């Protein structure tokens, strides 16, 4: 089996065996297949591209063509143990509403996103006056699907405002996971948060 992308490997580690997992924006289903075969997970996905869904179906996964902004309403409350949204939050129309829906559907939510507060991004804007093009955000502003970029601090502020419980925060610094908050908003190219549902049903 191919190695998982580093951020997906971190997500996989945070998921307990036998749980029900919904991966929103699951691509070709690499994470879901890993979870299904290594952790006996009941794996479901949502993916916007037809190619991604076809590849995932061929892996024996159950994936629905759709998007985070419109299709989460169809899922019953607390129907998943974990809902994953990796590298997709910044591309949604209404990130706030998507997060709320995820926390309704899942008992826990795992979100990862590129950190716009990373020093390279800051330099690009501050010194050159240009939108950043970095490894975590590799596409020019006029072509990127990212319409709601945020920093780690922005995300934490939203969680505070909405009173979402941050169970765990992991910062990817030079591709390595770190749990040190100090300077993370400057040093981390990606943030990964585990949130717990607003109301526990257990």
């Amino acid at each position, binding site marked *: 089996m191919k190695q998982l992308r580093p951020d997906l490997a971190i997500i996989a580690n945070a998921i307990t065996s036998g749980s029900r997992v919904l991966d929103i924006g699951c691509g070709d289903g690499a994470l879901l297949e890993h979870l299904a075969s290594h952790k006996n997970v009941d794996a479901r996905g949502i993916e916007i591209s037809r190619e991604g869904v076809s590849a995932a*179906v061929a892996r024996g996964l159950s994936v629905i063509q759709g998007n985070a902004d419109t299709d989460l309403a169809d*899922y*019953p409350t607390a129907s998943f143990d974990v809902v994953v949204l990796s590298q997709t939050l910044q591309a949604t129309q209404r990130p706030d509403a998507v997060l709320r829906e995820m926390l309704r559907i899942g008992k826990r939510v795992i979100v990862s996103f590129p950190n716009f507060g990373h020093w390279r991004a800051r330099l690009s804007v501050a010194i050159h006056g240009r939108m950043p093009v970095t490894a975590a955000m590799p596409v020019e502003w006029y072509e990127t699907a990212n319409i709601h970029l945020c920093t780690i601090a922005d995300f934490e502020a939203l969680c505070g405002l909405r009173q979402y419980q941050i169970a765990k925060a992991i910062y990817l610094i030079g591709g390595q996971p770190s749990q040190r908050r100090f300077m993370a908003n400057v040093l981390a190219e990606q943030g990964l948060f585990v949130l717990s549902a607003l109301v526990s049903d257990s």
Partner: protein
Amino acid sequence: MMINPHDDRYGLNRTVAFGPDQPLELDCGVRLSPLTIAYETYGTLNSDASNAVLICHALTGDHYVASKHPITGKAGWWDRMVGPGKIIDTSKLCVICANVLGSCMGTTGPTSLAPDGRAWALRLPVITIRDMVKAQAMLLDYLGVNSVLAVIGGSMGGMQVLEWAATYPERIKNAAVIASAARHSAQNIAFHEVGRQAIMADPNWRGGAYYETGSAPLAGLAVARMAAHITYLSEAGLTEKFGRRLQNRDAVSFGFDADFQVESYLRHQGLSFVERFDANSYLYITRAMDYFDITGSRGMKLAEVLRSVRARFCVVSFTSDWLYPTLESRHIVHALTAAGAPVSFVEIDSPFGHDSFLLDVPAFDDVMRGFMTSVLREAGV
């Protein structure tokens, strides 16, 4: 159980007859007997009968999925999909397709003889999609197949797949519903009614009792087919294929000949259809589709109807299919999701309208190949 390769239950162009001791309990309350089912099987059933795949055909389809049609001489309607080494691989699977109840291609229908020795014609009770599925279940029992690896169908075939999931959830492991719906819409019923009225307006129809007159309502049936055929295509498809091009002439004739290529094409579709199809069968099968509402017939919500489903579902729609639009497929997907059933869904970009599932659409092939790959892997076939 050992399967004898010379067992004549399997193979091309088969029929099985069920006598008065095995009537089919129809939804309308009648016990239908005798019952004949025409079917074909492709590939070899393995020793524990665990590699069977059931294909359900559409309104004017038949059991000649991948073999030459006895009347038209053309290749089977899904020859591109079913065969050795093809996407539905008959070198590994035993593919079964039964002609539906009400048809004119061998399974009991209005052209079949009633117990009094005369054709049923309109005396045949009105049948439903569930009746068709119950007949298929009798066939599977006869073939020694308890459960199928997958049941697959497009259009009316997809309705049968849903009915299988609702009626016999324990007998199917995977299900593919292609370009279909959980109920017939007002628009669907409306188009069918136009077709039926065309048939019934033909003086040769005679209330359905035309088998002994020597003249069938061919003109009415051809018009029904022409109207229906338009609904299987898309405006973009028609424009691309015909535009306003004229048929073998440089200018319009100021008459009512087939000036336009599209007219000529439709006339041809109508005329060739009547050579292979019976007008009364068309009435019965379109009626069965109109009556189809998998929730209404049970008085339940779709998610409740499908709550016993354990099969993995693959639902496919096509962008240009306005007869069974994507919204209908999404409705099925939502219900399966709510029921907790494992379901995949894709909307395929295709210009060919409803007929896309029968045509060369590589993106659709990709999805079906993916689906069948996982079906085979899961089964260890």
